[in-house]
């Protein structure tokens, strides 16, 4: 997504990149990076909640991934990775009088067909799945999310209690989508994706963008969320950036541009303020290392733990990349 905040962020990131480029030039004078092992701070692990409730197309039932934090490590073997999942927790989602329990599901415990179904819904590629992935999920899809309602999340485990709440916001759609030539020197195979939204005036609106290419799992760019402080009430045109695939290197010549012939699925969501703060601080934290950075604490709405209980109000837009 390429709204003003992201440009400032991108401008700052590019400015920092430039500074770092200058530094790299100086650093190139000698090998100046030395590996070291950080000391174990020896603090207790914390609960990490990654829970989502979605309203809209292709919405998953409410689910929570419950794990623990770990001190810094150089390599974590698979069995220790699996131990990060917290089992046998009591997790409930409630709204008004309605209250449902989330059931723990571990993929390896499921019969193959069900396992495949579950993996597809969660966006996991079974071929590459090497661990016993566990989620707490509204198995029967009892909870029906409604716009404007607030949903409480309560977790009990090991004598501890965690709590959070999220509200499903009003949905603001993408007004239109179209393709445009790549900026600078046009190239036959690369195009920019442009879009327009009509931001409702007077209310605080927050947005998240992700996209899937040729049926991949949904991916997000380096900056996936935005608020409407600068565009409140405006009919705003901007560019949606193509995220890099996991492991793909940054290449300035095609960064953020879509390849002709690809099929693209855009998910455009409205989210609440706490959910926005979570992704905003997380993405800032990820991009923020080096001498000119400060440590950023990832904002969390979980009382008693880390992570997020966030709701989405989403629509899907499918297009083919062509002029």
């Amino acid at each position: 997504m390429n709204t003003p905040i992201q440009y400032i962020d991108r401008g700052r990131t590019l400015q920092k990149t430039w500074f770092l480029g200058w530094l790299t030039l100086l650093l190139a004078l000698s090998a100046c990076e030395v590996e070291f092992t950080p000391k174990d701070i020896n603090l207790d692990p914390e609960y990490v909640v990654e829970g989502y409730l979605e309203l809209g197309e292709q919405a998953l039932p409410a689910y929570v991934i419950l794990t623990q934090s770990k001190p810094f490590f150089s390599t974590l073997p698979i069995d220790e990775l699996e131990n990060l999942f917290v089992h046998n927790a009591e997790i409930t989602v409630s709204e008004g009088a309605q209250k449902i329990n989330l059931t723990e599901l571990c993929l390896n415990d499921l019969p193959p067909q069900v396992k495949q179904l579950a993996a597809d819904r969660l966006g996991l590629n079974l071929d590459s799945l090497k661990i016993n992935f566990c989620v707490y999920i509204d198995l029967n899809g009892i909870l029906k999310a409604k716009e404007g309602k607030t949903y409480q999340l309560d977790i009990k485990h090991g004598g501890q209690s965690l709590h959070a709440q999220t509200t499903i916001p009003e949905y603001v759609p993408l007004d239109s989508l179209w393709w445009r030539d790549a900026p600078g020197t046009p190239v036959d195979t690369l195009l920019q994706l442009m879009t327009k939204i009509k931001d409702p005036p007077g209310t605080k609106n927050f947005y998240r963008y992700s996209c899937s290419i040729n049926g991949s799992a949904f991916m997000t760019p380096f900056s996936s969320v935005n608020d409407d402080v600068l565009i409140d009430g405006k009919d705003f045109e901007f560019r949606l950036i193509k995220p890099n695939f996991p492991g793909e290197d940054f290449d300035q010549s095609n960064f953020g541009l879509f390849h002709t012939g690809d099929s693209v699925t855009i998910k455009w969501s409205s989210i609440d303020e706490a959910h926005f703060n979570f992704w905003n601080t997380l993405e800032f934290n990820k991009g923020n290392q080096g001498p000119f950075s400060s440590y950023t604490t990832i904002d969390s709405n979980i009382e008693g733990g880390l992570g997020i209980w966030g709701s989405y109000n989403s629509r899907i837009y499918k297009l083919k990349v062509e002029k």
Partner: protein
Amino acid sequence: MHNIEHRSGLLIVYLLAAGILCYGQQSTFTISGFIKDSLNGETLLGANVYVLNKPGQGASANDFGFYSLTLPAGEYKIVYSYLGFQEHVENINLTSNRKINIQLNGGVLLDELVVEENKSLDQVTSTNLGRIDLATESIKKLPALLGEVDVLKALQLLPGVSSADEGGAGFYVRGGGADQNLLLLDGAPVYNSGHLLGFFSIFNSDAIKNTTLIKGGMPAYYGGRLSSVVDIQMKEGNDKHLAAEGGIGLIASRLTLQGPIQGEKSSFILSGRRTYVLDLAQPFIAKSDFAGTNYYFYDINAKINHQFSDKDRIYLSGYFGRDILSYNSSERGFKLNMPYGNNTATFRWNHIINDKLFMNTTAVYNGYDFKLKGEQDLFSFQLNNGVRDYQLKLDLDYYPSPGHFIRFGANAIHHRFTPNILQGRSGEVSFTNDYKPKYGIESAIYFQDEIKLSSRWTVNLGARWARFDQIGPFEFENKSYKKWQKVKTFSGVEPRLFTTFLINPKTSIKLGFNQNQQFIHLVTNSASTLPTDVWVPSSLMVRPQRGYQWSLGWYKSLREGGWNVSVEGFYKDMRNQIDYRETYTSNQSVEIEEAFVFGKGQAYGTELFIQKSKGNLTGWFGYTFTRSWRWFKDIEQGRRFPASFDKPHDLELVSNFKASKKWELGGTFVYGTGKPFTPLRSVYFINQELVTRYGPRNSARYQDYHRMDLAATYTARPGSKKIFTSSWTFSVYNVYNRKNPFFINYDLDSDLVTGKAEGTAYKVSLFPMIPSITWNFKWK
């Protein structure tokens, strides 16, 4: 307003009393005048005038070289002296007021490496606590990073002053923040003191005459910052003949021209410096995809002065400097431009009202601005912030009698602070965060009197009454303030009390207390200050900072061999300190004041300073122990943490050796406790990827920092009387190539689904051993 009248009334009564008291005594007469350098006419600030064999009966020249000494009628031998110059003795028969202007000759001692702690004889006897004067000639002898001699870097080699980072020009004095130092260039405050992210300061030492650092007792004459004053005076310009000097270095080159306009009545100096590394590479860059990419900085210092009469002299000085970064990638049509810099202009008028009363009126314009512009295709944006000041100052130096030296005056600054205003365009639609500048008037009146109670005991009593009015136009919570309308007022009295007791003529003890207020703030979110950092005024949202400092010092002068030793201790209490809340990200569209959290700070320490200023081997040794702590109730529930620049142990050894007539060697060695940093507390998975959790704040430290630099200066024809002379300086930074850590990087490679979880932590160091060569020349 009631208060000002009341206080002004008291002031007038005091002055009248002091005047009457003197008048009532036996007839006394005053000698006064200016003390200058005979070679180039530069005034010698702080030069001493005293009765031979009676240093207690003396005075110092003020910042403009003016002195005034009142004595009973009689015959005297008056000594005029200044370190590095030949003493001059004047025989006088004092029967009336006399005007005696003196020009001192530079002696063979001129080339010594000198840090004049309170100028020779006064170091032990004056009430100046924690004050150090640095002559520029001595700074030039120090080895420097990439050959760029730098006033601020030289200050970092003194006890009590520590640097931010590897190579940074930012500095911290006695545990106080980077914004707590009042940096003055010919009376104009400087808001951003660094080029290239702070690796080089904006001060071109060729144009600078004197640098004074006050880290302890700040006299009432100065105010507005909690921790220190760095008062930099530019040269006036050679008033006898035209001269040029300059140098060519690896990073930048400099050229200075100076000379008389009207022989010995007026002169000028013009000094410039510019980098050119990327300019030289332009032909290659122009052919690449990055055509239009460049970085350079420049500064210009200019000054003219004119003496209208015996009583009047005016000066006009200016500084113009800029860093310009432009980045251009033609392939994707992306352009980025970042120009920023300071411009200052100062006009001063010296007027001698009578032999005992010297007046200086100053008018200052000061502007700092930062811009960041970017564009790509349909999209463009511009971010800018800055500060703009207009200042008027009136200062009087009054020498009513030998026992009193009084300074009083008033000043007012009209500030305009521009926060990060964002404007942009996406296609047809424009957007802006619509921030508006904030305005304020900072004003003060002050009074101080240095009183010689006896031959051993001197006290300096002073107070500064300072005030800040936030004024409109301003809008806050649906209330609108008109232009000049008062929004909020802060004020307070700042007592400044110092005393010196002479145990014997060569040993003294000093004690001091000062209270300070600071009305403008620079809150930085990163480990080093960046040009994107924004100065904010006190306002409805931000209270002023307040500081209290107690200092105690012991001073000894061993004049044989020119040794000076001092031990100083201090305790500092700082209130209303400002930081950002923990979840702050600089890309939010909120005014930064909304992200501030407030707390307090405390600093304490001792400084040992041993200096040798005579002979072929000169230099100094400094050791400082300081702790600087912070508490914020909104950061980790008020847990005490060390400030980011907390450096418990800081050691410097600086030396200069005249090996022969042609060769001069210089060396520095620094050692400091490693900087604190916030370590990685844990990692956890979000969206199948590892994210980092940092904490507790500043609870870990980098390894200790140490480094040695060496320099050798070769002058082919030393003592040559030729018009054109030159020398070569070879220097090596970080001689034994120590990899001092600069920052830490965590590389996390993870994918929960495939079971991959790997982390690597790196310590990255910046400057390895770097040699450099500079060629310097002088033409006269």
